[in-house]
């Protein structure tokens, strides 16, 4: 589904990602851990083709097609979908208008809006005066209507209260399971692990991927000992 080979990326002439290699198969969910500023968001945004990220080496392959030179929308048409950590406000554009653009299935729009408690938001401008949790729910709502095959989720649970994490987690898991979708999910809190069936996790430090393993075990270690432990154990023992 998604393959990344030797990817190095610069932002404003500063090297951020170094030789990243990553493969996510169909139906596979990969969790991406890592301290702030390690390059996780850069990786997701580069995969999506957003501006400001310059690939200096390597390839991003989606469904056996190199997408390095494709525009953002062309990558969407291929099956990628992103959930922003901090989505912008789109004044004057209603959430319902976007929903209609993403799906012609009126029933699905209604069902998903109900499930994600976004019914009154449909007639509101996208992200304008939304709370943190509302913004995340609206992102997930749009993503499900968009129906991508590979989801790139940048901290889907940050700023969301426990109750809504559970709501979102269930909706997300249901979506991923049902059509065996693939996903790359960034998480700091690890809450999302309780809902999605992820078999693989990896840690990004200083722009490099350090190890791959069972995400729950990895998160336990990170939670107890912090990312310092990753530095210590790197190259000596693995989580798997």
């Amino acid at each position, binding site marked *: 589904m998604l393959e990344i080979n030797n990817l190095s990326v610069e932002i404003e002439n500063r090297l951020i990602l170094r030789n990243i290699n990553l493969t996510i198969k169909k139906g596979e969910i990969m969790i991406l851990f890592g301290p702030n500023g390690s390059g996780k968001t850069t990786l997701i945004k580069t995969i*999506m083709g957003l501006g400001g990220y310059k690939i200096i080496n390597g390839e991003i392959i989606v469904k056996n097609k190199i997408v390095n030179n494709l*525009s953002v929308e062309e990558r969407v048409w291929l099956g990628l979908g992103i959930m922003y950590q901090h989505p912008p406000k789109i004044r004057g*554009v209603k959430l319902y*208008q976007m929903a209609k653009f993403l799906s012609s299935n009126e029933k699905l729009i209604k069902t998903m809006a109900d499930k994600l408690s976004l019914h009154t938001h449909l007639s509101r401008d996208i992200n304008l005066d939304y709370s943190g949790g509302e913004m995340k729910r609206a992102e997930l709502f749009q993503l499900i209507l968009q129906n991508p095959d590979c989801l790139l989720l940048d901290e889907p649970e940050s700023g969301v209260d426990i109750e809504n994490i559970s709501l979102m987690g269930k909706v997300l898991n249901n979506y991923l399971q049902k059509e065996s979708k693939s996903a790359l999910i960034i998480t700091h809190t690890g809450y999302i692990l309780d809902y999605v069936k992820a078999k693989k996790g990896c840690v990004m430090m200083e722009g490099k991927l350090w190890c791959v393993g069972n995400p729950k075990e990895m998160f336990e270690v990170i939670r107890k000992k912090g990312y310092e432990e990753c530095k210590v154990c790197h190259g000596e023992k693995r989580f798997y």
Partner: protein
Amino acid sequence: MEKKDFTKLIDERDKNIVVSSGMDFSGKTRSASFLQQDNKVVLYNSLFKGVEIMGIQDAFHTYPEIRKRYWGNAFAKLKKDYPHDTEGGYFIRVKKGENVTLPIQACLFLKKNKFNQKVHNIIIVEEGARVYLITGCSASRAANESLHLGISEFFIHKDGYLNFTMIHSWQEDVRVKPMSAAIVEEGATFVSNYVCLKPVREVIMYPTAVLSGKGARASFNSLLLSHPGSLQDIGSRVIFASPDTQAEIVSRAVSLGGRIIARGHLKAEAVSAKAHLECRGLVISERGIIHAVPELETDFRDVDLSHEAAIGKISKEEIEYLCSRGMTKAKAQSVIIRGFMNVDILALPKVLQQEIKNLEDKTLESSL
């Protein structure tokens, strides 16, 4: 004059243009209609007994006293002169206490080329009356180098309410100079909505509302789209001549290459005035120019006047966000501009809201 005449009076090929200025030919959704083509008043009729509508000359004939009581008096309050060589225009009077739910429509149409259409309108809303008025000003394709000078005087008496919507639908080389003044008495409200999305050579106007009675309110809202080679110098002024008056001026301007000067002036001449002025502009083309000139002025300390203005290009992040949902850049840009030019900023009555939204969608679709 018969209602059915409306459709027959306008040339088949001009109909779309007239419709694009907000006119309903069937008249079914209107309480009264008026049509002037070039310098001739060709139709007026009212379906509602509380609404009087006629050509201004006929009004002088029927009610000689209005010349003294109203004609030129709004400009006199502003100590401002106005052109006296006008031909035609409408006279509308809504009787005391009448609540007119369907809008009145007035259409000023320029048919001939190189013609100067100069009209003077008088609108009177008597005590406690409520009414919506939509005026569509448009020009045939032939009337490309013509001039339209529309003078309007609004008198909103005590506790009256007037919601005035003006839609301009001109041609590339038409020059337009509306001049208007509104006198808003105690407890009365004047809402003025202005929409100009079609190409035009030049529009210069600075409509002014004088809040002459305690508790009077005014609101000016405009949506402007500027095409290459055009100048839109458009302002709104509110003079707070009585205590406890309120106003709001809101404008959205998009330049596709033309020049927009968005002015606004709030002048407090009495205590406890409260008002806000907001101007947002988007410059789409490198050649586009937007110049926002907000002015606040007070003679008193006890007032609350504020303004905010923001102009710039469409944020790259917003475009990218929409692209990441699968829209092309062009589509994303058009969606953002259409969202920016939101008819919700206009204080439109329900009956007109969808209609004007559809008109706007159609115009923007062909412009972007």
